[in-house]
């Protein structure tokens, strides 16, 4: 008889559970903060290691693929289209829906800070790898969802987009609902897998990489310096040609 009562109780409980709508709780949201206020936390700088202080901004989000094509790392319009197609912003209407902070535009000291609040925790569930895509040109419109500039081919080249950086870090994973995550620039580098797709690790700071022609020149200069050093070293140890 007791067994029968238990059965009735369970049927009642399950029926109640099915019939009653869950009380709506807080909208599951997270905050994502960019932590780059000074060189102690790490800054994103230009390829010549000078701070970015006239224009430029960062996009923050996730990638729709776990294996992005790292060969498309140079700042060209074609590569922009590739990364734009796989980048889901925490602050876009079609992405996380968070509020865009004005402080994701580089300030006069080349610093970044501030949070995108109200980011959808269902679009950015716990442990989602978060990325920063930094540009040396353009700016975000803050205060509401989105405000992310859309670039065309004419936005690439001298006086416009000539450099960018694309990076993440092992620590940059989305938090649980109702919590915040801070993306500290000096955490980039030395990760379990390479998460610095475009950029140079300077220790605390990350330098952007320049557009292809400058990048080739930069590589040539680096190669020349290496060869010169090797030559001098060879002479020093008497290994040079007679």
């Amino acid at each position, binding site marked *: 008889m007791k067994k029968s009562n238990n059965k009735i109780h369970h049927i009642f409980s399950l029926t109640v559970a099915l019939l009653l709508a869950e*009380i709506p709780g807080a909208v599951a949201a997270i905050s994502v903060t960019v*932590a780059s206020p000074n060189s102690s936390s790490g800054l994103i700088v230009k390829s010549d290691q000078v701070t970015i202080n006239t224009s430029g901004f960062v996009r923050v989000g996730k990638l729709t693929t776990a294996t992005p094509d790292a060969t498309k790392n140079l700042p060209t319009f074609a590569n922009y289209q590739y990364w734009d197609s796989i980048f889901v912003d925490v602050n876009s209407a079609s992405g996380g829906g968070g509020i865009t902070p004005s402080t994701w535009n580089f300030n006069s000291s080349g610093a970044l800070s501030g949070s995108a*609040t109200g980011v959808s925790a269902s679009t950015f569930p716990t442990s989602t790898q978060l990325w920063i895509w930094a540009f040396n040109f353009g700016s975000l419109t803050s205060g509401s969802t989105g405000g992310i500039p859309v670039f065309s081919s004419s936005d690439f080249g001298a006086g416009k987009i000539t450099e960018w950086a694309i990076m993440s870090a092992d620590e940059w994973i989305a938090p*649980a609902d109702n919590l915040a995550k801070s993306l500290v620039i000096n955490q980039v580098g030395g990760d379990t897998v390479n998460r610095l797709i475009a950029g140079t690790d300077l220790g605390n700071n990350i330098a952007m990489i320049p557009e292809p022609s400058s990048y080739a020149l930069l590589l040539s200069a680096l190669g020349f310096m290496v060869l010169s050093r090797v030559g001098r070293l060879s002479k020093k140890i008497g290994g040079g040609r007679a």
Partner: protein
Amino acid sequence: MKNKSIKFLGFCLLLSSASLVVGQTVSTPVVGFSKESLPSGQHFFAPSFIKPAVYSGTATISGSSVTGLTLSGSLGLTSFSDRPNFPTHYLEITSGSYAGTYYDISSNTSNSASLAQTPNTSGSVTVVIRPHVTLGDVIKADSGIGEYSDSISVYDNSGNFASYYFAGGMVTGDDFATPMGHVPVPPGKGIGINLGGNIQITNSGQVRNTALNVPVYPGAVNVVGMLNPSGATKLTSLTLGQQLDAYSESATLYDSSGSLALVAIAYSDGQDPTDDTFTPYNSTTSPSVQTKGTMLVNVGSAKYITVPPATN
């Protein structure tokens, strides 16, 4: 739970000094401190100690005004010009059917105070006024909190939260420069913490010896903390069963390993707290809110959740 432990908990009895309490009632508060290790990961955390009273005695409530007090100094909001301001003190009713209910103080004179909310009671009552515990009291440099990286979340009554960080040896806003250690952590309320490494939080103050009514709101992240600094609190020791709407409102308990693993979701059958099949818990089957732990309360209408005193 195995990773979270109170390393040391000290208690001693201390007779309140008459100079600390301006009013008539002089009690013998239990004071103590604890050092609690929080492992890397994510936590909801609530400080359980309270600060000494600056007034304790009778008062007369009329609307949001309170008279008959003896006060010194400003007990209202902070008055910074370069950062957001917050309440510094709260008034708690200690007699009658609203005992344990508290209200922020907006402003004051030497014998009166204006409250930020209007109490549901009026007339002569006994009250106590205390300073709020703040983020700066809870998160200190020696805790080992990660500068720039670890975050602290404080929840409002409408489903939003603000994030704070630690930089330059102090709690800051998300610009890592504006001092924000004055943000209050209201009694019985918890904060969210996201840690990249282990930290140790040192708490100290008076132990509450009376029940507390913690306000909770629909759509808000209601992190309700227990008052017992030295032991777990069984759900059956709360009046949750009578305070949650039957079969719909809930209290969610997480572990404190840093993963926020679900321990239990408790409902009510109108009388007792139940599991998610609406089977009432008893003192044996009841899950516990862990030491210094919290529960996330989900309600359809604004109400109070009564938390038993630490000395219960």
